[in-house]
């Protein structure tokens, strides 16, 4: 992978007028480079375990495993594009799941009516935490890292207060049978993955094609500039953290459906896994740059590594080592690109100069 040939990706570059060079531009975008990495990893495992790894059954398993993280990754991409961070998604997911489970437990029956109420409750809880995050960040001007670190603790703590620390294991059967481990009728695609895919497509369009998306990039690129031209920066930030929260609520109900338990202790590293995926996918922690597509690819790399290591008999702990390396490499690429852009050179010529041992002035 030639990591030097990277060009910053702006909002809505899809549809640039000169289509002749669009393929070359495509190759310079980090999310596509990372897609090549993913393909390479896939091919290596496929070669090592041709009987097991590249089968639909196994791929289906991987897709199912990343679905919930994919839903969280959407919101996280919006947040990180604004140069923010949301550490609270995992706790928010647990809290939303716990409250929804409590409500559904209290309603008693296991039909669709109960399930629908549960879904609304979970999304509402998530939205509430997201709004709280957004208001504290945009209005009270507390840094996102601190606000969401606070709500991370608060949401998890309250979830444990509500349950007394004991997981709730009563989840309506309809949720488990259809969304949880059911397939889309007539196919073998997990329903949970279809839900994630639909959300991903909708919000990819929102981020890259609409005014809301453009303002997300503008706020991340230069908050002050956006404010001066009349963009309502505070409202934009609150909406984005609310979106991230609401999607964590969706994740809460999906998790309940999939695992049949509130899994209070199971989400302690979810936030970091999602952040890592977003960053691996080429979204810059410094804001202004990013794609939903990259995030999806970034989620598959850890999942494929985990799955592949198990199948070929490597200790799965190596997955964490490999993901760590990929993460640092991705941020290194981003830094190089930013430094090159700041110097006003294209990073491509910079890379050549370095390659041939020339010093730029």
């Amino acid at each position, binding site marked *: 992978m030639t990591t030097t040939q990277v060009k*910053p990706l*702006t*909002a*809505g*570059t899809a*549809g*640039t*007028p*000169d289509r002749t060079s669009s393929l070359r531009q495509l190759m310079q975008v980090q999310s596509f480079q990372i897609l090549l990495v993913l393909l390479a990893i896939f091919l290596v495992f496929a070669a090592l375990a041709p009987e097991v790894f590249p089968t639909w059954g196994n791929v289906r398993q991987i897709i199912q495993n990343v679905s919930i993280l994919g839903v969280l990754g959407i919101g996280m991409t919006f947040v990180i594009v604004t140069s923010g961070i949301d550490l609270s998604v995992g706790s928010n997911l647990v809290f939303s799941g716990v409250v929804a489970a409590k409500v559904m437990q209290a309603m008693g029956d296991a039909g669709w009516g109960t399930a629908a109420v549960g879904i609304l409750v979970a999304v509402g809880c998530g939205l509430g935490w997201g709004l709280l995050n957004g208001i504290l960040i945009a209005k009270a001007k507390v840094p996102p890292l601190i606000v969401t670190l606070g709500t991370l603790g608060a949401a998890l703590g309250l979830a444990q207060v509500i349950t007394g620390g004991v997981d709730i294991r009563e989840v309506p059967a309809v949720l488990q049978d259809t969304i949880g481990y059911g397939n889309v009728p007539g196919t073998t695609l997990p329903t949970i993955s279809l839900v994630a895919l639909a959300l991903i497509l909708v919000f990819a369009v*929102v981020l890259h*094609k*609409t*005014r*809301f998306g*453009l303002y997300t*990039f*503008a706020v*991340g*690129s*230069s908050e*002050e*500039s*956006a*404010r*001066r*031209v*009349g*963009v309502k920066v505070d409202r934009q930030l609150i909406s984005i953290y609310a979106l991230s929260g609401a999607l964590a609520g969706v994740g809460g109900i999906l998790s309940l459906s999939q695992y049949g338990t509130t899994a209070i202790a199971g989400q302690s590293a979810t936030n970091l896994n999602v952040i890592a995926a977003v960053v691996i996918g080429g979204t810059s922690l410094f*804001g*202004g*740059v990013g794609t939903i597509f990259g995030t999806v690819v970034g989620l598959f790399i850890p999942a494929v590594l985990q799955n592949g290591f198990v199948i070929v008999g490597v200790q799965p702990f190596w997955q964490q080592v490999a993901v760590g390396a990929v993460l640092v490499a991705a941020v290194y690429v981003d830094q190089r690109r930013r430094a090159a*852009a*700041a110097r*006003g050179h*294209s990073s491509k010529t910079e890379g050549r100069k370095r390659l041939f041992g020339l010093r730029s002035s």
Partner: protein
Amino acid sequence: MTTIPVLEARGLTRSFGNVRALDGADFDVHAGEVVALIGDNGAGKSTLVKALSGNLALDSGSILFAGGEVDLNSPTQASSLGIETVYQDLALAPHLNAAQNMFLGREIPKPGFQGRLGFLDNKSMRAKSRAAFDELGATVRSLSDPVGAMSGGQKQAIAIARAVAWAKGVIFLDEPTAALGVVQTKNVLETIRRVRDKGVGVVFISHSMPHVLDVADRVQVLRLGRRVATYEAKKTTVEELVGAMTGALDGAHS
């Protein structure tokens, strides 16, 4: 001039703690004229521009637009009156492209239902941006590259083109030539004249006295948060301006 100024400030006062940044400052600019606003560091130039572009709350004083008193308390409100500002730092979003910066905050939605969903008419925004840059003779090579990767001169051109495109009443240029080379400076001064000839009032803030005398019709001098002198650019000299800025000529001129 006998006409009503397009923008006038009367007795503006604003304190930051114990510092009186504006101390009863007056200011006026007519349509179709270039007014240079000069003063030493800390004289209150930037504060005055902020107040007149809706970026600063005032302690007292009044602002009149075309003779009628207005309450400028947000940049959006100033833009709705056709008052635009090119800030020293240009206020561009570096990751967005030239066309996106040009229309940021004022995007053209797609017609019909798509527009209501938030979809944007990128095609016509690009075409209009291109037309605006061409009109100024600005060399913006790419409309789809992020402006952060462009040269200082190109960024400046985009910021000025944006302000010019939307300014129907007054345009403020805060030290637009400070970071520019000889040719680019000449272009900016040429642009200022062209905008003035369109009938817009131009307020030009600069430390460069030759540029001020070159392009301005009138020069207003601020010192210690107050307008201390107004000169016809044709009838004044660099020495006189510097004298007024530093206070050496106190009382010598009205």
